[in-house]
C-alpha cells in the first residue's frame, strides 16, 4: 500500500498531471453516462410501452371474426386450459364524445370494473351511468371528475336506425394508461350501459385474459407467445387471438434493432474517451518516466509496477462508472421533472419517458469500457516494461 501511494504521489505530482487526470475521469464518466442513458431510454421506452399496453389489453385478447359472440361454457373451458388469473368480457365500440360543444372520436369500452382491473392491472371504476376518461382526453377537452359528457354511438334503435344514439354519462374517474394514444382515445363505461345502448344482449366482442400477475413486469414475451398460440389452436379459426403487444409490435421490434445498432455507434464515444486516457498515459510516461525508472533502480519490481498500473486504471474506471451512474440518475430525474425534457406523446406514443437499466445493461457498458481502458493503459505499461532500467535512467536523465 505504501509503495502504491509513493508511486501514485510521484505520478500525480504537479498540477497539470492532476488536472489531466480529472479531465480524463470526467470525459470517461460522460462517455459512459451517454451510453448508459441511451440504453436506459430504449429499455425504458420498451418497458413503458409494454406495461402501458398491458394496462389496456391484459395479456391476451380474443375477438371473433363475426364480431359479437357469446361466452359459452365451451369457450370458457378452452380458455381455462391456459389457467388465466382472470377473464374480462368487454364490449368495444366507437363513438363521438361531446363536451363543452366539442366532439372527439373515441373508443368506448364497456367493462365490468372488477374483472377488467384484475385482468389488466388498470384500476377503472365505472358505476352504472358513469364514465372513465383517459388523461390526455380529459385535458384536451377540459373535462373534470363529476362533469357530464355525452356519447354519440353510430346507430340508434331499430325504428330509427339512421339516427345517432346519444347518451349522457357522469365522469367518475380520469385514468392513465401511460400510452398517449390510449389516454387520448379510450373511455370506459359500465358494460350493462353499452349493452343496453347497442342492444347486444349478453353478447360481447372482446375477451381480455390476464395470465400473469399484471403488476409484475414481464421478463420475456416468449411465455405469452406460447400461451397465445396454444389458445389459438384451441379456439380454432373462428376466433382471433392476439398478444397484448400486437398493435405496437413494430415499435418493440424497432427499439430492439435500434438498441443494437446504436450500441455499435456509441462505441465511437468510448473511443474518444479512450483517446483521452491514452493522452494521459503518454503524458505520465513522458513527464514521469525518470521517476519510474529511479523507483525501479531502488527496488520497485515490475510486478509492483504492473499492480500500480492496474489498480490506478481500475480506480479511474470505477470512479467513472460511479459518476456515470449518478449522471444517469440525474438525467432520469430531469426527464420526469423538467418540462423542457418532456417528450411529445403524439410522436413517441408514450406520455413520458424514463430511464430503465437492468443488470445486463450495466454489465455490457461497464464491461466494454473496462476492456477499452485496460487496452489503452497496457500500451503505456508495455513501454515502461520493455525498456531496461539503465537505458531508461540514462535516456531520461541525459
Amino acid at each position, binding site marked *: 500500500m*505504501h509503495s502504491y501511494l*509513493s508511486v501514485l504521489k*510521484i505520478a500525480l505530482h*504537479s498540477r497539470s498531471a492532476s488536472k489531466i487526470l480529472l479531465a480524463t475521469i470526467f470525459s470517461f464518466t460522460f462517455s459512459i453516462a451517454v451510453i448508459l442513458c441511451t440504453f436506459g431510454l430504449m429499455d425504458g421506452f420498451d418497458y413503458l410501452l409494454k406495461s402501458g399496453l398491458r394496462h389496456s389489453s391484459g395479456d391476451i385478447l380474443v375477438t371473433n371474426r363475426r364480431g359479437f359472440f357469446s361466452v359459452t361454457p365451451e369457450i370458457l373451458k378452452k380458455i381455462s386450459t391456459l389457467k388465466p388469473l382472470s377473464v374480462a368480457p368487454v364490449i368495444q365500440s366507437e363513438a363521438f364524445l361531446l363536451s363543452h360543444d366539442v366532439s372527439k372520436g373515441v373508443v368506448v369500452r364497456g367493462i365490468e370494473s372488477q374483472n377488467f382491473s384484475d385482468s389488466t392491472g388498470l384500476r377503472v371504476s365505472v358505476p352504472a351511468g358513469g364514465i372513465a376518461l383517459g388523461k390526455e382526453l380529459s385535458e384536451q377537452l377540459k373535462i373534470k371528475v363529476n362533469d357530464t359528457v355525452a356519447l354519440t354511438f353510430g346507430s340508434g334503435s331499430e325504428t330509427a336506425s339512421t339516427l345517432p344514439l346519444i347518451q349522457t354519462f357522469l365522469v367518475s374517474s380520469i385514468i392513465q394508461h401511460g400510452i398517449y394514444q390510449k389516454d387520448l382515445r379510450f373511455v370506459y363505461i359500465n358494460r350493462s350501459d353499452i349493452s343496453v345502448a347497442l342492444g347486444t344482449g349478453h353478447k360481447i366482442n372482446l375477451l381480455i385474459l390476464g395470465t400473469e400477475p399484471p403488476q409484475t413486469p414481464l421478463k420475456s414475451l416468449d411465455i405469452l407467445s406460447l400461451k397465445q398460440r396454444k389458445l389459438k389452436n384451441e379456439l380454432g379459426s373462428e376466433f382471433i387471438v392476439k398478444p397484448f403487444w400486437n398493435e405496437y409490435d413494430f415499435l418493440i421490434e424497432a427499439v430492439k434493432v435500434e438498441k443494437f445498432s446504436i450500441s455499435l455507434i456509441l462505441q465511437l464515444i468510448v473511443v474518444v474517451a479512450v483517446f483521452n486516457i491514452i493522452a494521459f498515459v503518454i503524458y505520465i510516461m513522458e513527464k514521469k518516466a525518470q521517476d519510474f525508472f529511479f523507483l525501479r533502480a*531502488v*527496488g520497485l*519490481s515490475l510486478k*509492483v509496477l504492473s499492480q500500480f498500473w492496474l489498480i490506478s486504471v481500475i480506480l479511474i474506471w470505477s470512479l467513472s462508472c460511479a459518476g456515470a451512474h449518478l449522471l444517469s440518475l440525474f438525467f432520469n430525474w430531469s426527464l420526469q421533472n423538467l418540462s423542457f425534457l418532456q417528450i411529445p406523446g403524439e410522436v413517441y406514443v408514450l406520455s413520458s419517458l424514463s430511464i430503465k437499466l437492468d443488470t445486463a445493461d450495466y454489465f455490457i457498458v461497464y464491461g466494454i469500457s473496462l476492456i477499452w481502458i485496460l487496452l489503452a493503459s497496457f500500451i503505456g505499461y508495455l513501454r515502461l516494461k520493455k525498456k531496461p532500467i*539503465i537505458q531508461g535512467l540514462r535516456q531520461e536523465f541525459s
Partner: protein
Amino acid sequence: MSFIILSNVEKSFGQTKVLSQLNLRIESKELVAIRGASGSGKSTLLYLLGGLDHPSSGNVIIDHKNLTSMNDEELAFFRNSTVGFVFQFHFLLPSMTCRDNILLPGRIGGKNIKSIEKDIEELAKILGVSHCLSKFPFEISGGEQQRVNIIRALSLRPKMLLCDEPTGNLDSKNSEKVTTLLKNLAADFGATLLVVTHDDKVASCFPRKIVIEDGQIIG
C-alpha cells in the same frame, strides 16, 4: 569466498562491446575506486554489480547469489535490500520532502519505517543536514542534496554501496569531503564500497583501485 565475483563477464549494446572478458573479485567491506576515462565501461560495470542490467555473458555473483539467474522480482528485492546507490545526479523527487525521499526505498521494500527513521535522524546529524529533512529538494543546496542522496542510499543499511561519479557535480573541497564521508560511513555500516570516478584525486583516496580501459581491467 569473495563478496563479489565476476567471471568472464561481457556486455554488448548491439554490435558495440562495452565490457570484455572481465574477471574480478572484491572482498566484503573493501573500499574500491573504479577509475577510467569516459566511455571506458566503468559505469556499465557498476550497473551490472547493482543488478540494474544483465551481462551479455558470464556470471555476476554477489553475496553468494548469482545475479544472472535472477528474475525481475528477485533482482528488485536484491537492489532494495543489498545495494545502496549514489548517482551523480541526486535523483531526489521534487514532489516529496527530503525525509520522504530518503524513506522511499524502505517504503518500496515494505520495511519498518519507524526504525529506518531513527537511523535517518542519526545519519542526518552526522552529515549536518538535520535541518533539511522537512524541506523539499529544491529548497536546499547542491551539497546538501548530495548528502541527502547518500543518506537515502544508506537508509536500509545495504551490504554494498555503489557510487557513480558521486563527486561529479561538486567542487574540489566538497568533493574531498564527500569522498571521506562515503569511506567513513561504509566502514561504519560494514558495507563494501565501490566508487566509479574519472578523477585521479578521488581514486587516490581508496586503498584499492581498479582501472578500466576499453572494457577491460588493466590495473
